[in-house]
């Protein structure tokens, strides 16, 4: 049995953990507002709010693609569909969408309404850019988004940023504010108490189970069969949901999501640009689920997070339940979609040295569509330099080999060199010899080679703007 609250109602259903929440909503609960547009998290038509109790005072809601959410993950949580946002009168968001005609065929509309509601639950300050980012996972084929933007901005205009600054996301006060401003129905006010009364069942990491991080990839790859598998959700490992610094090393837990990383105060100090740059990775609802560890284990040659941590020279801590071992990420990949991980091992921690003040980081990604797309080429760099002379450097590159590459020869060459045009040009030639891109739907071999070259140049132009203003390519 899986017990949860759906909208305003406590429910228990006898379901297999791997069934998608979308199917559960439409078939078992017979709620029709959530739509299936793609079944792989690329359109947002199935978006729901997932509310999770975190301690006594915090009930955190996130926008989630229900097509990628195994129903086992909603145990003891609050699932809100569009129906759960409806009241007698329209909510402020619904009203704005109606006034602006921000719905044409209407198929994507519930997803947008849910996404904007999630934004208002989570925003610290009603930032316009973050409001747009909140619908980055929602595709509309009709409107061209202009009326949707107008609707979102008109909602923001009707609210006071000061109210939002005063109420912490996840707090009772925020929920009350949203009830008062006609964004949430009144029943939200006591949901947290009701959630606490449900007693989530314990699950074990028994052998033979498939480990599911965020499930954003496995739900697509095993679309037809996931329902029949035995799953263990890493989100159950609350101990792995932390980011902390200990003895000069930053540790990221195996259950930490992309979005948690993006918003982490620790990461903000290590890589201040990350908050903006990591917007380029997936979409908000996918980042709300996808884990950093999952991105690494997935071993996609183009995994964005993997590329970042390769440059950081991260180390992986693996545990099979009996033995723990550590493997440098740079030695983890063995071939296309092949890693050093044994079947019953869990990637528990990813850790790396906290960069010193002479260390600079940068990440580049180019894809056909700037947001919510898989990279054609991505690359990251971590440079420790004094007076423009490289002391230590890590450069990674994705999409140019069978797995995420660490450009060891290029890095060796650059160590001890001064950042200047002739040196960089030589480094580019070495990098070009280290990669082996192939032509596929993400681009031709030639494109990927030249693009990586330019992105490497961009690393140095961005981090050493005085040394390298222009370079002839």
């Amino acid at each position, binding site marked *: 049995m899986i017990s949860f609250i759906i909208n305003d109602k406590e429910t228990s259903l006898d379901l297999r953990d791997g069934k998608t929440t979308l199917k559960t909503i439409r078939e078992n609960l017979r709620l029709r507002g959530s739509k299936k547009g793609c079944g*792989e998290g690329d359109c947002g038509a199935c978006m729901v709010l997932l509310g999770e109790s975190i301690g006594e005072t915090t009930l955190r809601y996130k926008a989630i693609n229900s097509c990628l959410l195994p129903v086992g993950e909603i145990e003891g949580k609050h699932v809100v569909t569009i129906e759960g946002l409806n009241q007698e009168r329209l909510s402020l968001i619904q009203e704005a969408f109606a006034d602006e005609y921000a719905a044409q065929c209407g198929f994507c509309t519930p997803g947008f309404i849910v996404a904007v509601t999630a934004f208002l639950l989570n925003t610290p300050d009603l930032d316009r850019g973050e409001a747009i980012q909140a619908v980055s996972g929602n595709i509309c084929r009709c409107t061209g988004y202009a009326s949707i933007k107008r609707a979102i901005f008109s909602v923001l205009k009707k609210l006071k940023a000061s109210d939002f600054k005063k109420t912490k996301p996840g707090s009772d006060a925020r929920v009350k504010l949203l009830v008062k401003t006609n964004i949430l129905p009144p029943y939200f006010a006591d949901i947290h108490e009701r959630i606490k009364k449900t007693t989530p069942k314990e699950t074990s990491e028994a052998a033979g189970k498939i480990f599911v991080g965020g499930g954003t990839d496995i739900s697509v790859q095993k679309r037809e069969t996931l329902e029949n598998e035995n799953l263990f959700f890493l989100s159950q490992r609350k101990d792995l949901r932390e980011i902390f610094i200990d003895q000069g090393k930053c540790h990221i837990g195996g259950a930490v999501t992309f979005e948690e990383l993006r918003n982490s105060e620790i990461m903000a100090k290590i890589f201040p640009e990350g908050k903006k740059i990591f917007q380029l990775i997936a979409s908000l609802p996918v980042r709300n689920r996808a884990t950093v560890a999952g991105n690494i284990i997935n071993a996609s040659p183009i995994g964005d997070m993997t590329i970042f941590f390769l440059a950081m020279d991260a180390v992986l801590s693996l545990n099979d339940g009996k033995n723990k071992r550590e493997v440098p990420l740079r030695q983890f990949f063995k071939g296309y979609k092949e890693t050093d991980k044994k079947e019953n091992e869990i990637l528990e921690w990813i850790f790396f040295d906290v960069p010193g003040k002479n260390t600079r980081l940068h990440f580049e990604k180019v894809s056909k569509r700037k947001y919510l797309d898989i990279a054609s080429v991505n690359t990251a760099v971590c440079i420790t330099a004094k007076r423009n002379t490289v002391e230590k450097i890590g450069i990674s590159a994705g999409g140019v080999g069978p797995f995420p590459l660490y450009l060891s020869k290029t890095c060796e060459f650059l160590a001890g060199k001064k950042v200047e045009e002739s040196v960089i040009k030589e480094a580019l030639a070495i990098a070009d010899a280290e990669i082996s891109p192939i032509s596929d739907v993400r681009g031709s071999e030639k494109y990927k080679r030249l693009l990586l070259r330019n992105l490497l140049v961009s690393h140095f132009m961005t981090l050493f703007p005085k040394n390298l203003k222009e370079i002839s390519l």
Partner: protein
Amino acid sequence: MKDYDVLLHVKGESEYTADRAEKTEMLHIAILASSSPHAKISAIQKEDAEHTPGVAGIFTAKDIPGKNQIGNIIEDEPLLAEKEVHYIGQPIAIVVAETKEIAKKAAGSIQVIFEEMPPVLSPREAHSKNRFIAPPRIFSLGDAEKAWADCDVVVEGTVESGGQEHLYLETQNAFAKPKEGGGIKIHSSTQSPTAVQKTTAQILGVPMHQVEVDVLRLGGGFGGKEDQATPYATMSALAAFLLKKPVQISLNRSEDILLTGKRHPYSSDFKIGLKKDGTILAYDVKFYQNSGAAADLSTAILERTLFHTTGSYFIPNVRAYAAACRTNLAPNTAYRGFGGPQAMFVLESAIYRAAERLGVDPIVIQQKNLTKAGDEFPYGMKNLSDNAIRCFEEADQKYHIADIKNRAQKWNEDHPQSKKGVAVMPLCFGISFTSTFLNQASALVHVYNDGSVGVSTGAIEMGQGVNAKIREVIARVFSINIERIKNESTNTTRNANTSPTAASSGADLNGNATKLACEEIIKRLKAYAASKLGATPEQIEIKNEKVLCAGKETAWNWSKLVNDVYFERIGLSCLAHYATPNIFFDKTKEKGNAFAYHTFGTAIAETTLDCLRGTYSVDSVKIIHDAGQTLNETIDRGQIEGALLQGIGWLTMEELVYGKNGKLLTKDLSSYKIPDIYSAPEEISIDFLKASDYATGPFNSKAIGEPPFMYGIAAYFSLLNAIKAFKPEAKAVFDAPLTPEKVFLSLYN
């Protein structure tokens, strides 16, 4: 005031076909599709699949009781393949089971033995092998051959434009239920209920009255459900008919992308001749349309390409050759613009190349050759208005094109790695189905005796706001509150022989039919009121729900009058029929008054190119659009904004990638990218042309659905200009979509 449909949408309460289906237990269909692009079928081994628990039936061509044919214009396409397959994804068999998963698994266990034949994938190869859907056609005006000698400059070139996946958010789906007496009722997500009805009747071998088709609304269509919703609806009907049980079919996203046709890719050759001052004297163009494996609507689409050969320009000497070339891809189909965008993209490319040769901005040539009242189109019709010129001039007056260009140039001088480009796209698009007989519609208006109104037409609501426009027509004719009016589903038992909701004509045709029906009912109401008051019907007026006689209020309001009329035993319903007047086309001469009118406009687009990464964004698009006297400005604005971004998508990021065998590799949303919120232009400004004339839509409105799609072309050429600003020697590529990869390689190749 809030719109009825939009109110349902924001609450998630609008029902789409699948939402109506799941209330009953259904059987589900999986399609066994061809994995070969071109082969003879030697054998189909389905015994194992038939014994899979949960499977209710497996049907192949042999099981079809009627005629195995779904071709709408040309009968060249079976519902289920018989002896041969002609594209990857062609349906061979349908498996019906308790769940879709079981059906899919069983379909996967069917063995089809193919005897492979070589596929033809490119239209030029098909052309060289005389693989035509229909004989090629030629439109001409003046004498292009003679005119070359008078030209100062003649340039030639080749243009490629890619296909485009519709990507309506609601995938193809339908469900069917058996009815008493061997009939069938189908709920289908289709733009053409009559096509579904007729084809199903033919497949089942029953008269059309045995097949009822009902459509409430679509989660997007864009042409993709004009002809290609039919096979899926028909499959559900076939299974329901044979098994005597309700059956549902619903394609998942990848199936939908793999099995259905797209916008037609074109390969074209142009030759254009001009005087030194930019006057275009002659234009010769050859269009090679990649039609796919069956006719579908290809010939009609090709025809519209020919009609739009000269875009919004007058060219005195024209020769346009067009061939629908049969290849081994899924049959390509209708998509917003219906062949028009492909023609205009070629001409704009020709103008761009000519401008390069003349050393002028293409805008000079564009403005110089705009069509004016009295100019003849290559199909013999005369342009009735100067609106092409008026839109262009209004755009220039409002936005000062020269200033926009100067600002871009200044930016380019200051930014070595970032370049801006500016381009203009003038628009002229003919409104009417070019198959004249389709320009008809019916509307059934019921006034209930409480004063509320229900209306049924052939128009399908798919997000374009046709329901709201029809309500607007009724509210205006009756002069009543719009809340009184409700659109019913489109149902073949209420509206027969409907034309597809396509060609931007939904509101024009069905709105006009509705208007006629309302006018007839008003006539009856007025006659009654006049007789009771001893006045003449002309003295009676209904205004804002009040009934006036000679300008003075009477004791009646709308609902009271309606109620009294009912008790007088006067009919309060009317079925009216509308046919667009004064249109014809003679295919033997390729001349005629093909269109009721044209719609015009001008767009100015500005893009910024990141020259290090090859990525770009459309900064702004500024539009003056001729919508006639718009029925609903908000809806028309939404159509322009949406069509514009679809056009930009077609020309920039939406790339269909095929493997060597014609297998589509971009078969999901992770590999086929359509514009997201960040891809939309930062700024879109839209103004409607004032005092627009010659519109035959209801209350002098003009059709809006397709024309603004072509504004996206401006984005393409603004991007070429940005590339040129970075690399003046870069050769302009006329090869849409202009993906970041193509941009990058033209910067660094």
